[in-house]
């Protein structure tokens, strides 16, 4: 199976590198699911390899309303930063409650979706999340994608919109290479040729049939919208 979705092995390593650049004492909460636990294991391994210390870690349930008992402990461990590994809905709750508990340090987490921004409201201000190349990217392909999407759907695209869009167009490009048949698409995907995407620009599939040589970009919530943390000149 080919996919434009980044593996957690790849993504969490980059995320951990970004977090540990400035913060060495971390509290981490992660979803208690197979995805959440695996992602956390990978994040932790890389964070420790970078010399950071995880002073508190805890699983959280996606349907809990109240993460305060867990977050109180996370806060009391006096970390430099609190990291959340999960989705937009629980991320919104976590960041709201973290701020309510008076934690003023850096928060990494949530998800690059309009739902996260809407649900978290003012508490999301200053949140950093590692993302793909979309935000702050002024390449014509990207701005065209944004404009067209907003024109059709009335709101900004999220990470998932971009993934879906890219996945479909990769298939189109594969068919252009090998022919519009099952075998043709397979040949196209396996050909090792580069594909054009909105998220990563041009990339080639790695041996594990995933993109694993694409850069990611940390984004930060400023005034209720995402922007690139390190603006490209």
């Amino acid at each position, binding site marked *: 199976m080919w996919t434009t979705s980044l593996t957690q092995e790849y993504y969490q390593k980059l995320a951990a590198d970004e977090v540990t650049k400035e913060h060495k004492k971390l509290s981490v909460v992660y979803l208690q699911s197979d995805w959440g*636990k695996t992602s956390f294991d990978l994040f932790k391994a890389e964070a420790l390899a970078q010399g950071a210390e995880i002073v508190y870690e805890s699983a959280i349930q996606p349907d809990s*309303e109240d*993460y305060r008992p867990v977050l109180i402990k996370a806060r009391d461990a006096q970390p430099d930063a609190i990291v959340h590994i999960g989705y937009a809905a629980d991320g919104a*709750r976590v960041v*709201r409650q973290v701020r309510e*508990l008076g934690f003023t340090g850096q928060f990494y987490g949530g998800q690059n979706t309009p739902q996260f921004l809407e649900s978290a409201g003012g508490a999301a201000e200053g949140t950093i999340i590692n993302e793909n190349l979309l935000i702050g990217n002024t390449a014509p392909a990207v701005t065209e994608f944004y404009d067209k999407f907003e024109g059709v759907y009335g709101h900004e695209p999220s990470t998932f919109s971009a993934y879906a869009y890219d996945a479909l167009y990769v298939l189109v490009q594969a068919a252009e290479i090998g022919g519009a048949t099952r075998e043709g698409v397979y040949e196209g995907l396996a050909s090792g040729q580069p594909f054009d995407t909105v998220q990563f620009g041009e990339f080639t599939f790695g041996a594990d049939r995933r993109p694993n040589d694409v850069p990611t970009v940390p984004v930060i919530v400023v005034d209720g919208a995402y922007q690139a943390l390190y603006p490209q000149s």
Partner: protein
Amino acid sequence: MIDTIISGLVHGNVYALVAVGISLIFGVTNVVNFAQGSIVGLGAMLGWWFMGVLGWPWLLSLIAVAITASVVGYLISISAVRPLVSAPPIAALLATFAASMVVDNLSQVVFGAQTRAFPEPLATDNFQVGGLRLGTSDLVSFAFTIIAMIALWAFLKFGRNGRAIRATAADPDAAAQMGVPVTRVQNLSFLLASMLGGVGGIFYGMFAGVVSPVSASFTGTVGFIAAAVGGLGSITGAVVGGLLLGLLEAIGVFTFGDGFRDLFIFGLFILVLVLRPYGLFGSRKTVATEPMTGTFLGAGRPIELRWWHWWLVGILAAVAIPLFGGPVASAVGTQVVIYAIMAVPMTLLAGSTGQVSLGQAAPVAIGAYASALLVLRLDLPFLAGLVLGGLIAAIIATAVTLPIWRLGGHYISLATLALGYVVLAVIRNWDSVTQGAYGLTGIPAPSIGGFVFLTSEQRYLLDLVMLAITLLVVIVIRKSHLGTVLSSVGSDEVAARSLGIYTRDYKIMAYAITAFFAGIAGSLLAHQYNYLDPTVFPIQMSVLVLTIVVLGGMNSPFGAVIGALVLVGLPEALRIASDVRILLYGVIMIAMIRFRPQGLWTRTTA
């Protein structure tokens, strides 16, 4: 720690609001209104809509939500509860449970499943207590609960309608003879409780900050537990139960982590049921075993199939589906058959002995994991895993619920509901054995004597054989002396006991048999999916099994098969989305209980 305690109390306050409504209704009508939690959730979503989308001011929205919730509660009362007042309690239990399914999923369909930011009309963090930022909204919430509790108490003690409510609760017939309009009073109590629930939903929304239809309904479920812990029927108990539960949940999660949340809430509940079943403030008489079914279901005789009918159906099912339907129809058929295996023995539990299990997914999960682990880790052959899976499921499910069978039907239902959550929590946290949320991979396919069942058609036939065995066992039991004894327990428990029958033990036996076959169904699932994790066994599975049995006829094994065909096969074939499905199940259940409680596959006797 102080922060945790305060946080727990604030959360517990929300539970208390749900619980008060439940205790109020239970005290008056002897019905556990499972829809109460859904009404709280609806209140939250409506609050979001009125304030956040329509932009109405706080007070207006509060009143609007109160009115809407009262209307919904009133509708539930007149459509699902009142018409069943002369029917045994099992009917009302199922009806309110179905109503909760309808309200929850209607809410999901109307408002969408996303989480929304709840508007903050009152400040939520304008002062500091310890390390916590509390707000005016939390204070108002607490104040509301206290005022509601006092107002209710005063109303019930001194108000004319309040005393009418109490009279109806004590003895509806005597109250009617004294001129109390019993129907109106019962409807009034539903209205009142729903109004409280709806307003409670708004406070819940302010507390949670973000709301969604799904998360609100979990809070509702915990509300029942709080009401039961406090003592069903006691308003004070409901408030205390709610606060206590919130507190213990917070402390438990603080100490052990959020993964243990369900274990704490529902495990605590089962403990309370064992040690002090009538709760903190309840009275002993609320747990007296009252008969759940009576002649309610006996009004229809199951349409019996002759032996050659069975052969015909069996051969048709075995040949037609794989031959004409191929792998896709066989895959759907497998689902149908496995649910039928879960549902058929329920005719012994719900039909014969009149007990409702709201958590059948629990023994299914136990059987699935047991079988998978035995085959994976100990290299046992598939058949051994299958049978042992069933046995282990029966033993564990029965052992955990053992002390509770002496209580009345409502408590059994709540206990089985709790068991569903507890089992999943244990599986999710016991990483060393079950691999928790990571899941078990590479579970071997079913194989008997070297032959491996790999294709859909082969697996379908294997499952069909298992279903045949299940049907055989259940029908033989029903026709035997044991079956008659089980029926006597359900039809008239008091008469049965005066004949010297140990009714509690027979109920346990029926449950154990149901759990055994549920475990077998679980084992079949495990070896056919080749992968297991806790998300395979959600509450929806328990709900579906129950609906199947109600639809087909609680006394009819073949009816259960038909029920599975309709409720599992049709939606798969028509590709109906899952949230609409549950809505459909709820509506079907209410319709069946109202108009044809004996089920589809029965003949009404004069």
